[in-house]
């Protein structure tokens, strides 16, 4: 600690503990982002973000155009929904999202004239994103447009972005941190985006910084992505944006860990980045923000990476939100024979699912298909208190104790040892030699603790 200092930043580019899983990014990091074709049917769940579901605005049988608002996020913590295709609204269906949410979804049958998705992607990766005329945008307008465009964090949690950028009197934002770490193994969508469309990210970052009136903008990238760093450096020339090159380590991309790495501050337990004067956003989100404000087009598409040894042709794709995962997999050549588990997101924190008609949502950062060999795990044995999980936990918790407490439904011990501080990064499960499902147990323990507090 402290031996290596990050140049120009208070932090040292590293955080306590963490793990080094094989990143397997080579499978897809050389393949350029490809643009998916317009799907025949689009399914848009009404809740694709954290918070309150949006209110459906269209009825069955109604015709919608590309980019038309079909669901309105009325509540503060909610996001609007826009149609990525032109077509006819069909009857609502029930979908079960990979994260277990069972909810109603608008489905749209493609009909009539469509926009070219290729053009949309070209727009994003073009080099003519403005860098100097940002000041023409009023901060409040920026927030409003972000809200109305339905922008949510594309890193995985899908937290509505306008909530983060809404100015707050009590907690002043000092630094805007753009998270380009992408510490999850396999995923390469952020990397490709940074490499192919750095200008859009920069534009979005400048706009967001203006909205939150941050003095500093930092783009954080792990040191295993030299190409992206190079491109970003070029794109950020003559701007205030700094680039922090961080140690490759999981979970470097978690906001608490990232802030510790770069700024050297710890977010208080149960607090938010804004408690230490930081606003944080994903690189993908920044590109979308730039697009929403400058091109005035809402969030309808995103970049995902489809990777893993269980897929025939790992690819990075520019897909419309609401496209069925079936089609995505089909586009990537289908599953191999030994595919065993399909995960929405990365293998550490993603959600596995079995129903391939599930749509891609705003929070889907990738689809990872793992093979039998990769997930083969030994039978669970007893915890021998070796302490490896303690040495791995980035939150400095004692996972084994939390997990045992959860297993024996002992919520008082669980709360005493701060079970709620766990953000389920999976480091402990990864290193556990006894193959105990620590994270899963802690997750149930959190539910139990919450339930017992409510009683």
């Amino acid at each position: 600690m402290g031996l290596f200092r990050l140049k120009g930043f208070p932090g040292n580019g590293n955080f306590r503990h963490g793990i080094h899983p094989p990143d397997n990014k080579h499978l897809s990091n050389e393949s350029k982002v490809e643009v998916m074709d317009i799907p025949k049917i689009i399914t848009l769940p009404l809740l694709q973000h954290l918070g309150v579901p949006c209110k459906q605005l269209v009825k069955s049988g109604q015709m919608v155009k590309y980019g038309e608002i079909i669901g309105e996020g009325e509540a503060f913590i909610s996001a609007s929904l826009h149609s990525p295709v032109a077509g006819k609204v069909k009857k609502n269906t029930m979908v079960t999202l990979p994260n277990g949410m069972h909810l109603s979804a608008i489905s749209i049958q493609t009909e009539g004239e469509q926009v070219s998705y290729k053009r949309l992607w070209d727009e994003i990766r073009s080099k003519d994103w403005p860098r100097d005329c940002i000041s023409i945008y009023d901060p409040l307008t920026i927030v409003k447009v972000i809200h109305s465009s339905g922008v949510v964090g594309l890193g995985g949690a899908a937290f509505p972005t306008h909530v983060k950028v809404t100015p707050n009197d009590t907690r002043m934002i000092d630094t805007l941190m753009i998270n380009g770490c992408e510490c999850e193994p396999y995923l390469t969508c952020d990397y490709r985006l940074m490499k192919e469309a750095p200008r859009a990210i920069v534009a979005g970052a400048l706009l967001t910084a203006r909205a939150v009136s941050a003095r500093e903008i930092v783009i954080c990238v792990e040191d295993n992505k030299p190409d992206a760093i190079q491109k970003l450096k070029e794109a950020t020339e003559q701007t205030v944006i700094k680039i922090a090159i961080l140690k490759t380590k999981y979970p470097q991309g978690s906001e608490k860990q990232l802030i510790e790495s770069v700024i050297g501050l710890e977010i208080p337990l149960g607090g938010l980045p804004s408690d230490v004067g930081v606003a944080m956003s994903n690189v993908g989100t920044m590109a979308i923000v730039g697009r929403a404000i400058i091109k005035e087009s809402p969030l309808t598409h995103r970049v995902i990476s489809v990777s893993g040894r269980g897929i025939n042709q790992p690819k990075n794709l520019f897909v419309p939100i609401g496209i069925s995962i079936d089609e995505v997999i089909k586009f990537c050549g289908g599953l191999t024979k030994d595919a065993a588990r399909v995960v929405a997101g990365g293998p550490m924190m993603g959600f596995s699912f079995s129903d391939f008609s599930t749509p891609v949502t705003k929070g889907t950062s990738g689809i990872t298909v793992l093979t039998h060999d990769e997930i083969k795990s030994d039978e669970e044995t007893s915890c021998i208190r070796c302490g490896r999980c303690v040495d791995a936990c980035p939150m400095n918790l004692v996972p084994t104790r939390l997990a045992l407490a959860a297993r024996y439904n002992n919520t008082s011990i669980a709360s005493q040892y701060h079970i709620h501080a766990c953000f389920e990064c999976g480091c402990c499960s990864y290193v556990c030699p006894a193959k105990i499902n620590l994270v899963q147990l802690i997750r149930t323990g959190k539910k139990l603790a919450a339930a017992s507090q409510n009683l």
Partner: protein
Amino acid sequence: MIYLLDIMLIALTAALINNFVLYYFVGICPFVGVSRKVEMAFGMGLAVTFVISIAAFISWSITTMVLMPGAPLSAFIAGFFLSKEAAATIDLTILSYIVYIFAIASSVQFVEMYVRKFFPLLYNSFGVFLPLITTNCAILFACLTIMSHVVGVENPKNVWDLGRAITLAFFGGVGFTIAIVIMSGIREELELCDIPEPFQGAAITLVIGGILAIAFMGFTGVDSGIRNALMPETTARVSIKTPEQTLFFDNEVVSIKSHSNQIGVQ
């Protein structure tokens, strides 16, 4: 120096070597009952240590003043009715058990009421443990041990003074605290263990107590080791002769004829 060493060894013996709980088996009830939480156990230990010291003070005073043969107070009162020699032999040690248990019970109750009224905060942290202590054998045991070192000791110079008495009691309480806190730590851990159903609760506590007792046996002889290390034996210097008694022996009967008093046994 020698007195200090003596005190130190009494303390060490009471706290670790001959631990009240693990060697003498006194205070088993709270050891089994009130050892589920470390905070609880620590509070209990503190309360016991406090009460045991008070009880030792009271019982030592009563024993030396009233109960033991020739105690000043009872001899003084008896002096009104009897000759001086007879008054000096008044022996009330038979009342000792009753007196001790009453001294303990009333001091516990008094302290509890006092603390509860005037120090509610203190009461919440340690006063709540007080009622549990009356039936704690450790306190009575300490009083009895002190008594055995005060009454009926052959060598008048070996009779314990107040300092030794309180040291024994206080460190006996410390030893109790150590044992119960260790036990509570282990039992908190056991909350997360898959203990066979029949052994849950008291049984596993006793088994752990057994293993702890084994571990504490490692301290056996530490006191004499320290004594030998710090104070090697040296040769005698002065000698004083003391009064003589004549005794007669035969196979069946012992009779003692001494200059002062005569006790005949048939």
